[in-house]
């Protein structure tokens, strides 16, 4: 930008015009290339969000009414909807356990894979496989694995004399079952950590070894700081995705009824039922905004705390 201006001030009158028109042409092309995103952003993201924000203060039901009712939806949520609290608690429970477990699991796995033992490529393939498998097929597989009498998990526990729980029918165990299932696909973020570990310059380790740092010191003073940007990215995204858990609960409870004693009624499922089962759209939109604010605050806290522990190797960012 600065060089451009320097050129412009030096080269007067005639070429200036040409340069300007070239620049304008370039700008026009830029917006043209961006146009799909610009249209999509206005029509599919920003517009809908504004509509939803306004809608959350109405009694909208898609077909007939859309009267402004002030804060009624929000008041009702906090004072007169037990399922709101239950679903919020279920979701927080899920996030609270699944996010740390998968983060630590993925890091440990990536560290093991990065030790240069033979067959690394094969292991990487195997561990990553579950991460590409998703959808109803996988949930059905886990329903079978976790089935109390014919399932493999309880057979396996039985070998050690442990009587496995009724994973998907005992309300005390349903969420743990889903967290357990989530752990299976930890290879997805493992791949990110592995890529990041491989980007740590070898010279750092060599220097540390010469200084007499042992393996544990090397991990905490070199490896861990170097991969903090990926840890940060992983935590922020898994928090956002964790709060959106829906499909698993919908498929693994009977057609989205939220499972035994509402133990699988996650926030999104509650919202889904309000919006598309009883068409209480205004209320459902209010629900969505409350969770959005919760997620937003958590993300902002993460961003705020990041400079304290995330280590950036300066300069790469455009």
């Amino acid at each position, binding site marked *: 930008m600065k060089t451009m201006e320097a050129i412009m001030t030096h080269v007067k009158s005639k070429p200036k015009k040409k340069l300007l028109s070239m620049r304008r042409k370039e700008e026009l092309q830029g917006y043209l290339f961006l146009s799909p995103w610009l249209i999509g952003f206005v029509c599919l993201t920003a517009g809908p969000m504004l509509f939803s924000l306004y809608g959350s203060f109405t009694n909208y039901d898609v077909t007939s009414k859309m009267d402004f009712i002030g804060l009624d939806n929000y008041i009702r949520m906090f004072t007169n909807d037990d399922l709101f609290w239950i679903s919020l608690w279920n979701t927080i429970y899920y996030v609270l356990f699944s996010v740390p477990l998968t983060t630590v699991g993925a890091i440990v796995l990536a560290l093991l894979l990065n030790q240069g033992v033979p067959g690394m490529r094969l292991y990487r393939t195997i561990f990553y496989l579950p991460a*590409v498998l998703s959808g109803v097929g996988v949930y059905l597989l886990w329903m079978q694995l976790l089935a109390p009498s014919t399932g493999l998990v309880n057979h396996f526990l039985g070998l050690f004399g442990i009587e496995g729980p009724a994973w998907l029918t005992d309300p005390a165990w349903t969420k743990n079952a889903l967290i357990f299932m989530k752990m299976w696909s930890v290879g997805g973020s493992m791949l990110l950590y592995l890529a990041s570990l491989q980007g740590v310059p070898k010279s750092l380790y060599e220097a540390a070894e010469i200084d007499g740092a042992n393996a544990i010191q090397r991990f905490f003073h070199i490896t861990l700081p170097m991969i903090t940007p990926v840890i940060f990215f992983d935590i922020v995204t898994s928090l956002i995705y964790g709060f959106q858990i829906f499909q698993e609960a919908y498929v693994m409870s009977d057609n989205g009824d939220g499972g035994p004693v509402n133990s699988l009624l996650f926030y999104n499922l509650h919202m889904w039922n309000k919006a598309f089962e009883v068409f209480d759209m205004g209320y459902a939109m209010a629900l969505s905004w409350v969770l959005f604010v919760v997620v937003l605050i958590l993300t902002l806290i993460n961003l705020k705390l990041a400079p304290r522990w995330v280590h*950036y190797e300066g300069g790469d960012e455009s």
Partner: protein
Amino acid sequence: MSSFTQPKHSYFQSVRLRKKWMNVLISLLLIAGSILILTPVWWMISTSLKSMQEITRFPPTIIPEEFHFENYINTWKSAPFTLYTLNTLFITTFAVIGSVLSNSLIAYGFAKIRFRGKKVLFAVVLSTMMIPGFVTLIPQYVLFSKLGWLNTALPLIVPPFFGSAFYIFLLRQFFMGIPHEMIEAAKIDGASHFTIWRRIAVPLAKPAIATVAIFAFNSAWNDFQGPLLYLNDEVLYTLQIGLQIFKGEAATQWNYLMAGSLLVLLPVIILFFIFQRYFIEGANITAGIKG
């Protein structure tokens, strides 16, 4: 290892020996982990080939005593799976084409064209990654219903043509790596950005574009919430919805349910093994994130 290191021999040997044992230990852990990861997949295959009588037997058999391949045929026949497959392929094809086209154009714009407000707009792109899908789910449903798109594949086919933050980010990172001189040289030869995009950028970015195509394929193929919301007519159902209904019909016929699950997962598994390196490519680019 030979004779001239004799004095220090024992020290080096002990270090090397320790490393060797460490590697053995790690290998054992990785093998155990691999077995744990693969067992569910094996269990799915095994159960899909068993008779119901064998499934309920205790202790369970690891390899089926008899291979009931007819389970697959019976499963396929018990619901209109052929129709579901065609529907899914139709939606998936458009989703992949839309994602590749739109995101590569948008990403090129962000990476290689100079215009005002680019930084701000790119920050907006990244921040949309932070917006949970459920905030736009209901108003989008309202929009599509007002457009008369309910019960058509349009709500699933059209949005991919407008780009998505993660793919834009991924491709932009890749395009940034194309030397600027190359673009400038083409411009001096009179090429427009569109020509440069088509002739230079896209061919060079093939690995990144393949990554986007595969990710887009997987997410469209596995999408459950979208079809569940928008497709109510049985002739429009996708495989995911079909399988969900089949779940209710087959109840605890685990052999059929596993056969159905495996058939639906098969394309994803095959693609994964063929195009594995593109998943790794995707991870490498994403891990380059600096904030």
